[in-house]
């Protein structure tokens, strides 16, 4: 017996399959992860999170577009618009720390949020799924770090 269900399973699987961090998961595994995700809809110009907020999770963009307004000089020159399938706020998934930038929805944006508590329970209870998701997040993090390092190389003033 299932309570508190909204969309059908097929719709949810289809929606989440398009997100890179869930690419490697089977439909059954996606449904298990879906139990832990919190869906939120943001209107244009609505703040998703603000710099200095106590962050503890990552927002995955399902549809729409968001803009990142960083205070850090290094990030100001970077491409700071993110669309479907991309993540924002991933740093705080591993370390409960203040957010380093403000993220605002440019258009109507649907996100799913995965928070530390749920992610930890996924890693403990279902290691195979947890490792796949963790692997993808690590890949995204290293790609972004590399981009930043390359940017710094060409930006001696920073």
């Amino acid at each position, binding site marked *: 017996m*299932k*309570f*508190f269900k909204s969309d059908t399973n097929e719709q949810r699987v289809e929606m989440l399959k398009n997100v890179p961090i869930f690419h490697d998961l089977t439909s059954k595994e996606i449904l298990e992860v879906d139990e832990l995700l919190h869906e939120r809809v943001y209107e244009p110009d*609505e703040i998703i999170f603000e710099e200095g907020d106590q962050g503890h999770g990552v927002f995955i963009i399902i549809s729409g577009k968001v803009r990142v307004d960083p205070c850090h000089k290094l990030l100001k020159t970077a491409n700071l618009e993110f669309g479907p399938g991309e993540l924002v706020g991933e740093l705080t998934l591993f370390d409960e720390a203040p957010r380093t930038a403000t993220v605002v929805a440019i258009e109507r944006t649907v996100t799913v949020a995965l928070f530390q508590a749920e992610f930890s329970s996924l890693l403990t209870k*279902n290691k195979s799924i947890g490792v796949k998701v963790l692997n993808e997040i690590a890949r995204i993090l290293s790609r972004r770090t590399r981009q930043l390092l390359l940017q710094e190389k060409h930006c001696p003033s920073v």
Partner: protein
Amino acid sequence: MRTFPQPGAITLLATILSTCLLLFLFQKIIWLIVPLLLALMLYYCLRPVVAALVIRGVRHKTAAQFVWLLLQLITIAIFFEMVLLVPAKTGTWQSDFGRYLAGGQNLLKKTAETLEQMVPIFKSMKLDEQVDLLAQQFTDRFNGRNLLPFALQLLKFLPSLLLIPYITYFMLNDSTRLKKYIIKSVPNAFFEKSLLLFSRLDASLLNYFQGLILLTLLDTACLAGGLEMLGITNAIWLGLASAVLAWIPYLGSVIACIGVVIVAATDFPDKYWVAYACLVLFLCVRTLDDFIFVPLTIGRKLHIHPVLSILMLFLGAMVAGAAGLILALPLFGVVAVICETASQVVTDRRLKTRYRATRQLVSSQGSI
């Protein structure tokens, strides 16, 4: 439990009023509230069992069903045991009740006599006669009473206990969905902080209930061991009952102590030192609880100021009678944590400003 910042006066007032309102409503559905509270406790105690099964490869739903089945079997066994035991034992309980009342009365009389001999002022006050009169009045009130209506009341309450496994199963199986459902109703501005506080609250409750069970086991071991050494009959059951009664703050320990002292006084009518030794044992276990066991198991408990505790006990008794007296403090603890958490979210200026801005944004977009 994790300590939250001290509540403000408005939060405190809201907590007291909410508790009174809930007590008033709960007295009508006490048959549901008691199983609900017990199921909540079982949920937190059995959640690690389900998690352990899931880690070993069992599906979450199957693990929850397995735990539910075990719980259901235990509940049914207790239910039938009680159904058979209560009618059969009512007669014996009736005579035992009178015997224990007389035992308690004798202990009081003996204590008053001893005090008169030791302190002359008590002799001039005729303490012996006064205590005897009071004890007689108390005994007369209960001695003539038939325990059968009470036993029938107990039997009437038993079927609601069958709800415990079902509620526990629902919590074990659907707690994540329930949490998502509740969080869904929170506006975007408060979403992340609410979820963070929700997770902390959940972790605190998990530690609290698991700690409470461990504390109960430690208390049972100490009390049962002590009572056994003193030669009290049914030491283990008395120890367990006393440890469970201690879940009710202040009142529970006092009731348990009086009960055990009366049993000791009845079992050893010529050795009153045994009853006093029981009293000392309770005080020792209480001290061990406060200084060693509680910090080891529950950590820092949810602190309720003693004055506030007494006020809540009076209010509870006034609003909902005996049930209110028992439920007042546990309920106050739960309501206090919820109110403090909610107040932390809604009083965050930064989040409030963001919430207002979002509302303006949505209304301006709607008017375009």
